[in-house]
C-alpha cells in the first residue's frame, strides 16, 4: 500500500513538497514507514530512521501498525515556539 507521510517546516521547504509517498506492505508498522522514508532519501537516512511519526494525530511507537487510510505525519521540531 502507499502511505503519504505529511512533512512540515524546514524539511518541507528543503524538499519543496508537503508529503512523501512511500510503499510499504499491508502489515506494515511505523518502523517500516521510517525505513521506507530512509530508503527514499539515502542522504538523510539516519534522520528518517529515527524521526517521530504521528498516526492519526497521535505519536505512534515504532511497533504500531499502519493501515491504508491512516494519516501519517512526520513530527520533528527544531526550536519551535
Amino acid at each position, binding site marked *: 500500500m502507499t502511505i503519504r507521510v505529511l512533512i512540515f*517546516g524546514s524539511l518541507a521547504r528543503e524538499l519543496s513538497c508537503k508529503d512523501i509517498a512511500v510503499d510499504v506492505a499491508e502489515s506494515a508498522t511505523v518502523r517500516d514507514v521510517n525505513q521506507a522514508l530512509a530508503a527514499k532519501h539515502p542522504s538523510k537516512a539516519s534522520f528518517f530512521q529515527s524521526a517521530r511519526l*504521528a498516526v492519526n494525530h497521535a505519536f505512534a511507537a515504532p511497533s504500531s501498525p499502519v493501515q491504508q487510510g491512516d494519516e501519517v505525519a512526520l513530527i520533528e*521540531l527544531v526550536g519551535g515556539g
Partner: protein
Amino acid sequence: MSVLVRILDGALSSQRLPHVLNPAPTTEQVGATLVFEGIVRANEQGRAIRALSYEAYEPMATNALTELARDILHKHALIAITVEHSRGEVLAGERSFRLAIDSPHRKEALAAMDEFIDRMKRDVPIWKSPIYI
C-alpha cells in the same frame, strides 16, 4: 482547576484574556500568577527578518497543547493554565505565544512554565519559518 488552549490566526493581541491576571482571581488559593509572552525578534540566526510564519498541524497541535497543559497542571498542582499560540504570519515585534499560570505558590509556577515551554518545543507540532526582509 482549568485549562484553556487557543491557536489563533496572526499575532496575539496585547490585551490579556479576561481571566488571565484576573482582577478577581479564580480561587482564594491563587498566590502567584505568571505570564510569559514570546515576541518575534527582528533577527533569526543573525539575519534580519520581517516576520515568522507559524504552521500548526491541526487538530494534533491543539490536542497536544491541551494534553500538555493538563499534565503540567496536575504535576505542579496549579490552579489554571491558559495557552495561546499564533499560526500564520507574525511580524517582528509582535507576540506569537502567551502562557499564563495561576498557582498557589511561585516556585511551582516557575517550574511549570519552564517545563511547559521545553516540552511544547519538543512535542507540539507547530513549525516556524523565517520571512526575510
